[in-house]
């Protein structure tokens, strides 16, 4: 089981308290954009091999959404940070 640090509770807690909520930092476009842009917003994801910025929710705890960078190769959660904060740089990370 993964141990995940909730940035609101400031505690490292078992994965069973959390739910995954998709890729992070997906900006919702203005609804007047083209169908192609809207399609990309809804369905196109980066799916990297390596560090991936994700939304998680501390569903069975403080109930807050926050962001995590998880390495999709090692399944290690590298860092977590509060919703609204910029994506932190990860040492040794290559461009995506």
């Amino acid at each position, binding site marked *: *089981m993964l141990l995940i640090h909730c940035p*609101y*509770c*400031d*505690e490292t*807690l*078992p994965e*069973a*308290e959390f739910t995954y909520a998709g890729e992070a930092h997906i900006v919702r476009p203005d609804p007047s954009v083209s169908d192609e842009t809207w399609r990309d917003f809804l369905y196109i994801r980066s799916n990297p091999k390596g560090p991936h910025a994700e939304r998680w929710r501390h569903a*069975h*705890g*403080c*109930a*807050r959404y926050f962001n995590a960078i998880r390495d999709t190769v090692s399944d290690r959660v590298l860092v977590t940070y509060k919703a609204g904060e910029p994506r932190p740089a990860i040492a040794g990370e290559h461009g995506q």
Partner: protein
Amino acid sequence: MDEPVKTMSTTVEALPARARFSLRATEADAAAAGEALAVPLGATIGEIAVAGDRRSLRLGPDEWVVVAPLEDAAPMAGAFAASGIAGSLVEISNREVSFAVSGPAAEDLLAHGCPRDLSRMAPGRGARTVFDGLSVVLWHVEDGFEVDVWRSYAPFLEALLTAAQRELAVTV
């Protein structure tokens, strides 16, 4: 929820009804909300704050659960409404029931369903967490743990706890 179940190492007992509130308020309004409800509101997530027979547990950045004797429910709701605080106080007295889990092996008993390391939850601390798929609120109080669970799940939770008790009675 008939007779309390006791073994050498654990006791599981349904607690009598109490007033419960879900309070949502910003950090800035917390002190005023606590004053209106005559209960302190903990400053950090997981903190239990007590005043007489009323107490609160901070569940999240802007969320507390407040419990009090049943007869205090209406006056507390009235006092909060009169305070004009821009927060939300929802009475959930009937939504949940509580079990007291005590005895020297209480932590081992709760470990049957709760993935948290409860040795790190000191007395005076609590949390909303999970027990075998159920969302529960754990309070580590003076004489053991209290577990709040939504009413319709209570028979299931009690069955899990008593089954775990029998297992512990054999192994401890």
